[in-house]
Each structure stands twice: as structure tokens, then as C-alpha cells.
């Protein structure tokens, strides 16, 4: 999926119309409380079925042969020996001509076992004519560099301006410029990519480990040249995605093709090495920010230049936080992408915002120090209730100031070094913070159904995905709340394109899209039930309350009928269609947060330990406090992981990735964790949807690296300006500080 399309979806459809959705009640019984996952038993007993676990008796196993070269011409592919291997049912050529990165697919086989498929790959003879390549942005931008595509390696992808930065810098009493760098990050979901394709006549069913069943369906239909009506995509459980599973993957198309060719179901599972090489990554960035401010801290100008690298695809635009969060009338942004012969970038949890926030928040920290101001006060000084840095429209709800207050109090902001690095001893502590902004409105038009069965069972149905965010559970919570039942009474049906349309589970879209759609359907069901009960109980429908598995009149609580008994009287099962309504125009719908981190830096070994992170988020109404806290915890873990460890390492001489595994692509472990305090500002958005909730998937992923880097700065007096902050970098930075450079 094109990154820009992803961001458009994340931003949500343009708010339209004047419709104000049903006001959300102030008091809910279940919504907002901590509720354990309704499908917990299935997962903890190992019975939840993930795509890797899908099995058919006559299934074949597909494997893909991939280019070992960063740049080459495939001049011949000889499948004969592979085809001749006993147990191989099909072998296909996938590529003719240029391959542009290590890992690009060249050929594929389908065999009766995975082993035979792997053996068959070794028998495929491919002739490559290797070509010159570039694998670093620096080399790619150099004069005479080999071209990755037919156009130049450097391409402008974004520009923006408001006011006049020249004037703004002229007005400034202090001007400051710094450059920040972020590395390539690999998603590494614990479940590697996998698909199973099965044809029934001319109809295709695909089980896919995906965050986007409809995208996969449509992508397959297009690739195979068949109508969308002939494709069905099913996702039961999935083991993580983080953006790497947001559209149809090449290997899924390959599996579908092989299944069609052989007439048997075909399963393809990627290895960890393939996941490291060729299903996407978070593009790197090199962001230069120049800022001007008055001595009292008022920002007068901000400019940003970003050079981002997304391999063979475009990198990430990273300027949104700078454009939006802080009040500043004069802003200029220029963003460029650099192509290299490496795996293409892909949406990765809060694309662009993670990198842009690392740079912006590091810059704010350093500029504050330059101005002699407390970094938190500096941010408060430039607070705005309208977007685009105060020049746009008002935020529908913004609780960032409360995030600051609560976070500062909980971590005890007064403990920080007044001057960065002023502590003593070999192990130095420091506090740092970072602000965060993201979209959160979800997608109007999302559909959902509720079905009431005559035996009292209830279904909540949506073509959404649950990648671990607790979607099933909030659907059960909302339905149960509205119908006066318990979450365990609700049967959840998701992850199938035969169900009502829902957007991708990415961009923090799911809760603010599917939640309101389910609520809409449930409210309709409740109205219907009230009407039925009103007749049975001879009370006005408006008087009837649904609670405790019963319907009763508010004025006469003893007059009641059990839900189960009421629905017995239905002529047939009842279906209620819900839709997530539009958001009123004239408002900006965003989510906000602030992370406060405490670190300890061992100045002799360069090791950074994160001691504590207080994470305060404002995302409107919280649906399930238990799973919401996990979202925050998870985002922080990933942020710490990239702040300290993660980096794709490429050998420039051979163009190959040297760490396509989990030993050397280092993900934070249980031993690297701080104390984490997740806090929510309970601020229900009055107009965003019928629940007042916003998305939480990405917000917690955005600020942690910046907060940690700022805490390191506070601890040792030098800002590393580059992640991951591995011991070698920390030691070098400390030495150059000592040397006074």
C-alpha cells in the first residue's frame, strides 16, 4: 500500500456534514472498566488458530527463491531440476529482468512438504548478471551513484510552508540548528508472514496473517484478474503486524497462483530471514531542524529538512509533528526520499511520526537548554488549541496540557538536573520528556452488524481485525453495555471479508471506527427490544432500561422481562446494521500524549538503562482500561527497543544485510524493561463519534525514543541525536563532549 494512502486513511476521511452523533452517556458500567479479553481461554491454551496453524490434508507448501544480490539482471531461470524433484507439484518463474534488492523474489515452488520445497529451491538454477548498487543514502546521493530506478535517486516528496521563515528567523533572538538521525527498523512480528490459498472452482479463499482483509481481497482480485466477489479473505488470529501486514503481499499472490495451477491448497510461510529482508521496514531519516525563538521561549520560526530512505520505495514524511504541535506562525518544510538497493520501506506503527517526533522533541529539549528554560515550560509556552501550530482549526478535544501536568507530577519533574549533565559519579541519572500527536478519528462509513438470535445468543459482527489490540473484547463490551448483558454473552465474529466492511487495523483506526459502528447497531437493537418489551410490559418504550440481562421500566423496576424470554418471541433472528457516522466539519481530531522518562547512563560502559517511564495519553474515552494499558506498555517497549538496540545493518561492500535474524537485530528483552506507569486523561470527545473515543494504537509508540534520548541528555549533558543509542555511540558522544567539540 502506498504510504501516502496509509496516512490518508490514518488521518481519516475529511470531516463533513453537520451531523452530531448520539451523545455518549456520562456513566457506563462496563465501558471504561478493565475487562479481561473475552477470548483469553483460547489463546492461553494454545487453541487459537493463527495462519501458520491452518492445515488442510492435501495442502502444498510453497517457498520462494530470492535474489541474493542487491542489484542484478536475471538472465536465465532454469526450473527443470526443481520440477523433476519428487514431491514438487509446481515451479514458477517470478522475475525477468532487474532485481533491485537482496530478497526480491525470483522463482517459487509448491511441494508436498516444506522440506521438499526448500530442497527444490536449491535446484533452481538462476543466472544473474550483477550490477553496481548503492545501499546507503550517502552513497546514493553522491555524484555518479548507480541509479536504483530509472529516475534520480533523490526525489522531493513533500513541501509545506506558512508565514515567512525568513522573517521569523530575523525576529528571533536565538537561532539554533540541529540534525537528528533514525535508523531502519524492521517490524519483526513474532508470527512471520503467512498465507494459505484455496480455490473452490473459480472462487478463492485465502487465510492470511493480515491487518487488512479487504485490502488483501482487493489486491488479490486485481493481481489475479478476477472479480472481488470471487475472493474471500479470512484472518482468525494473527501474531503481530505493526504495519507490515497492511496490504496484499507478493507471496500471497504467489501462493494463490500456485494453488490455482495445482488445484490444491497452498500454504506459504516466510522465514525470519525473509521477514528481515523483504516485507518492509521503517524508513530511516536524517532530519535537520532549525528553530528561532525569543528569549522568553516564544517560537518565531521552524524549518525542517528531511532526507528519508525507504529502500526501493519512498521513505517517510516526518514533518507533521513539527507542523502541528507547537504554536509557530512561520514554518517551512522540505522532504526528500533517497532510493537505495535495499528492501522497501512500509508503514510501521506511526510512520513518520516516530522519526519526526524524535527529531522535534530532541530539538525542543536542546533549544530549551540554549534558552535557559525548563524544557516542559518551553513546550507549555508554545501550547495551542488549534492545529497547524495555531494557524488552523480548533482541536475537537485536546488534553495535552493535562498530560503534561499529570506526567510531571507522577515522575516528579523537579528531580531533573537543572543543567544537563550536572550530576556526579560514573552512573548518571536524568529525566526527559516528549510530546506526541497523532490522528484518532477513525473512518466514517465503517459498518458493523448485531444479530439477536431467538435462543438468546447475540452476535457482534465486523470485517475488522484483532492484531492483539483487544478488538474482540471492546466489541463485546460495547454490545453488552448497550444491551444490558455481559461481555461473555456476546459471540464475536471478525476477520472475514463476508462480514461488514471495516478499515485496516492500522493507523489507530479500529477502536474509533468499529466501536461506534457496533454501538450504532447495538443502539438500534436496544430500541427494537424496547419496543417489544414496551408492548409486553405495557409501559412506554422510552421508560425501559436494559440491564442485568433484563428489560424493565425505570418507574416500575419490578415489572421486567428477561432478555432471553423477550427474544424468544421474535419471528426470526433480528439483524441490526450499524455505521460509524461522519465527524462534524470544522474541527481537527487528534490524539495527544506526553512521556516522561528516567534513565541511568553508565558513563564507563555506555550502557543506558531506562528506569521509569510515565506515559500519559489523551485518546478520548477509554473503552477497556486493561487492554488500553497494554497498548501503552507495548508502545513504550518498542520505543525503548529502537532507542537502544534496533538497527538493520547492511554491508556496503556486498550490499547484503548482515543481521537478518533476531540474534543481531536486537529487540528489547524482559531484562531491559523499566517501570512503566500508563495513565489516561479521561476526556471524552464531545463530537467525534457516539462513544467519544479516539484511537490508541500508535500514540504510545511515538514519544518513547525521544523521551529516553532527552533523559540521556539530561543525565550526561550530551544529546546523542541518533538512534539506536548503542554503547559505542554513547561512549563516542561522551568523549567528544569531554574534548569540548
Amino acid at each position, binding site marked *: 500500500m502506498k504510504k501516502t494512502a496509509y496516512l490518508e486513511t490514518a488521518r481519516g476521511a475529511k470531516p463533513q456534514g453537520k451531523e452530531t452523533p448520539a451523545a455518549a452517556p456520562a456513566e457506563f458500567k462496563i465501558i471504561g472498566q*478493565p475487562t*479481561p*479479553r473475552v477470548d*483469553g*481461554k483460547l*489463546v*492461553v*491454551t*494454545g*487453541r*487459537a*488458530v*493463527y495462519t*501458520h*496453524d491452518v*492445515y488442510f490434508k492435501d495442502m502444498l507448501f510453497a517457498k520462494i527463491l530470492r535474489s541474493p544480490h542487491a542489484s542484478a539482471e536475471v538472465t536465465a531461470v532454469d526450473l527443470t531440476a526443481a520440477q523433476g524433484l519428487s514431491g514438487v507439484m509446481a515451479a514458477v518463474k517470478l522475475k525477468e529482468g532487474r532485481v533491485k534488492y537482496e530478497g526480491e523474489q525470483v522463482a517459487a515452488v509448491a511441494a508436498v512438504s516444506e522440506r521438499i520445497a526448500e530442497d527444490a529451491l536449491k535446484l533452481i538454477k538462476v543466472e544473474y548478471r550483477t550490477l553496481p548498487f548503492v545501499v546507503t543514502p550517502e552513497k546514493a546521493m553522491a555524484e555518479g551513484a548507480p541509479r536504483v530506478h530509472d529516475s534520480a535517486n533523490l526525489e522531493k516528496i513533500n513541501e509545506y510552508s506558512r508565514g515567512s521563515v525568513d522573517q521569523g528567523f530575523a525576529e528571533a533572538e536565538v537561532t539554533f540548528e540541529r540534525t537528528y538521525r533514525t535508523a531502519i527498523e524492521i517490524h*519483526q*512480528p*513474532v*508470527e*512471520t508472514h503467512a498465507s494459505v490459498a484455496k480455490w473452490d472452482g473459480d472462487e478463492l479463499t485465502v487465510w492470511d496473517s493480515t491487518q487488512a482483509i479487504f485490502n488483501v481481497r482487493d489486491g488479490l482480485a486485481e493481481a489475479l484478474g478476477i472479480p472481488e466477489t470471487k475472493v474471500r479473505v479470512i484472518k482468525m*488470529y*494473527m*501474531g*503481530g503486524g*505493526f504495519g507490515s501486514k497492511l496490504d496484499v503481499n507478493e507471496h500471497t499472490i504467489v501462493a494463490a497462483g500456485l494453488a490455482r495451477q495445482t488445484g490444491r491448497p497452498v500454504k506459504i510461510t516466510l*522465514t*525470519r530471514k525473509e521477514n528481515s529482508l523483504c516485507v518492509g521496514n521503517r524508513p530511516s531519516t536524517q532530519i535537520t531542524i532549525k528553530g528561532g525563538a525569543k528569549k522568553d521561549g516564544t517560537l518565531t520560526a521552524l524549518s525542517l529538512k528531511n532526507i528519508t530512505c525507504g529502500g526501493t520505495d519512498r521513505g517517510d514524511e516526518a514533518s507533521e509533528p513539527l507542523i502541528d504541535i507547537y504554536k509557530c506562525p512561520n514554518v517551512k518544510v522540505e522532504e526528500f526520499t533517497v532510493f537505495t538497493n535495499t528492501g522497501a520501506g512500509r508503514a510501521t506503527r506511526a510512520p513518520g511520526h516516530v522519526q519526526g517526533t524524535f527529531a522535534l522533541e530532541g530539538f525542543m529539549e536542546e533549544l530549551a537548554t540554549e534558552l535557559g528554560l525548563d524544557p516542559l515550560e518551553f513546550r507549555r509556552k508554545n501550547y495551542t488549541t488549534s492545529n497547524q501550530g495555531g494557524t488552523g482549526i480548533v482541536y475537537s478535544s485536546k488534553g495535552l496540557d493535562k498530560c503534561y501536568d499529570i506526567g510531571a507530577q507522577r515522575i516528579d519533574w523537579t528531580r531533573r538536573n537543572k543543567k544537563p549533565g550536572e550530576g556526579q559519579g560514573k552512573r548518571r541519572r536524568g529525566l526527559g520528556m516528549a510530546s506526541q500527536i497523532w490522528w484518532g478519528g477513525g473512518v466514517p462509513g465503517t459498518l458493523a452488524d448485531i444479530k439477536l438470535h431467538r435462543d438468546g445468543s447475540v452476535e457482534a459482527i465486523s470485517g475488522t481485525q484483532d*492484531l*492483539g*489490540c*483487544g478488538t474482540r473484547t471492546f466489541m463485546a463490551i460495547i454490545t453488552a453495555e448497550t444491551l444490558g448483558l455481559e461481555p461473555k454473552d456476546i459471540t464475536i465474529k471478525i476477520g472475514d471479508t463476508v462480514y461488514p466492511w471495516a478499515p485496516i487495523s492500522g493507523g489507530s483506526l479500529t477502536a474509533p471506527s468499529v466501536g461506534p459502528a457496533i454501538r450504532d447497531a447495538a443502539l438500534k437493537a436496544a430500541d427494537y427490544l424496547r419496543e417489544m418489551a414496551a408492548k409486553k410490559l405495557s409501559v412506554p418504550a422510552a421508560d425501559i432500561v436494559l440491564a442485568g440481562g433484563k428489560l424493565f421500566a425505570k418507574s416500575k423496576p419490578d415489572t421486567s422481562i428477561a432478555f432471553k424470554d423477550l427474544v424468544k418471541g421474535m419471528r426470526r433472528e433480528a439483524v441490526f446494521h450499524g455505521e460509524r457516522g461522519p465527524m462534524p466539519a470544522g474541527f481537527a481530531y487528534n490524539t495527544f500524549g506526553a512521556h516522561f522518562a528516567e534513565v541511568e547512563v553508565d558513563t564507563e560502559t555506555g550502557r543506558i538503562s531506562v528506569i521509569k517511564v510515565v506515559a500519559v495519553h489523551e485518546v478520548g474515552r477509554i473503552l477497556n482500561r*486493561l*487492554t488500553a*494499558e*497494554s*497498548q501503552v*506498555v*507495548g*508502545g*513504550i*517497549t*518498542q520505543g525503548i*527497543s529502537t532507542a537502544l538496540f534496533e538497527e538493520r545493518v547492511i554491508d556496503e561492500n556486498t550490499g547484503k544485510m548482515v543481521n537478518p*535474524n*533476531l*540474534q543481531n537485530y536486537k*529487540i*528489547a*528483552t*524482559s*531484562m531491559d*524493561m523499566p*517501570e*512503566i506507569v500508563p495513565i489516561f486523561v479521561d476526556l471524552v470527545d464531545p463530537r467525534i463519534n457516539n462513544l467519544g473515543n479516539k484511537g490508541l494504537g500508535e500514540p504510545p509508540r511515538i514519544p518513547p525514543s525521544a523521551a529516553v534520548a532527552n533523559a540521556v541528555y539530561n543525565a550526561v549533558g550530551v544529546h546523542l541525536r541518533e538512534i539506536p543509542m548503542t554503547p559505542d555511540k554513547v561512549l563516542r558522544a561522551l568523549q567528544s563532549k569531554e574534548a569540548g567539540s
Partner: protein
Amino acid sequence: MEKTSRKKKKTVTRRAFLQGLGGGAAGAALATRIRGQAAGSGQAEAPLPAAYTRKTINFTVNGKQVSAEVEPRETLLEVLRDQLKLAGTKRTCDRGECGGCTVLVDGQAMYSCLFPAVRANGRQVVTVEGLAEGEALHPVQQAFIEKDAYQCGYCMPGFIMASVALLNQNPNPSLGQIKAGLSGNLCRCGNYVKIYEAVAAASQKMRKS
């Protein structure tokens, strides 16, 4: 924890020798028998052990006796998932670099992706499917739900087994000991601090009962 020599669980009988010779249908056994002194005399002309490319192994999984025909290159993980259809244990990196495939072998937590299936012969293996008693969940499983220890759930079987091994060995672990006990399992969703809470809760429950 075992401190001294591991007791060999089974002695090799002549019959086992011969079984090794025969192998399975696809096996080509390299068995050179040099007749000489009796086996075990330590002299150079003792008969060589059989070498085989297939073997029938017998072991227990979750208390049940099972039998499987395996190649030496097969891992316990593959046998569990592909032959015994116990899909609860996941293949996540296949290199012992993430812990997702953790099972218990004779009570010890191990990466089943690095455990040659042939070595499972005679062993007791416990997987995540073997913890609950009917519908009654193991306290660790129950705690993992109550404390929301998982998000996508894919690393959970590995964490649950590692937690069970930890608590069997140390029924009252401190936070540091919990972290260390789980230091061989990765959670990419990043839910570690929730997992600690769940393990602490489970240990409390298990000590009460």
C-alpha cells in the same frame, strides 16, 4: 535443578541396536558391525553404533504416550506441530533466538526448534496444550488472562511454558527473578511488564493452594 550427572534414561539394548539398523522405509543405515570384543570393553574393535536416517521415537506428550517416525534433521517443534498436530507451540525464528517454541522436556524449559526430535525418545514433553485440566486452567494461564499478559498472543505459549518452569523451580520469585526467568522469551508486542504481573499473581495463587 540437577547438579550432578544426568542419569541416562534408557539403556541401549541389542534390540535397539538392530532397530537402528533397520530404520524406516526411506532409511539407508550405515551400520558397520565389526565383530570383536564384547561391547563396552573399551577396546578398539568394539562394535560401532548404528547410524540411521530415520528412527521411530516413543515419548510422552502431555501425559500421553506417542510414537513418531522422524529424520535426524527434524526438530521436536516440527514433530509436535506437523506430526502430532499440536499447533499451540509456535515456530517463530527457528534458531533459538526468540523463545516462542519453548516447551518443557523432563521438566526443563527448552527451545523445541533446537531440540533434535530423535533425542525426545523416552522423554516427557509438556506443551501449552497440556497445562489445563479439562476446562480448568493452570494458574499461570488464568493469571495471564486476568492481568492481560498478552496482546497478539503468539509468544504466549512460549512465555507460559517458561513461566511454569520458573515457578516450578522457584515458587516465590522476586521481580528480578521473574525477569531473569523469562529472559529467554521475546515479546514483540512489548507486554513484558504485564507478563511479570501475571507471573507474580500466579505464584501467589499457586502458593496459597
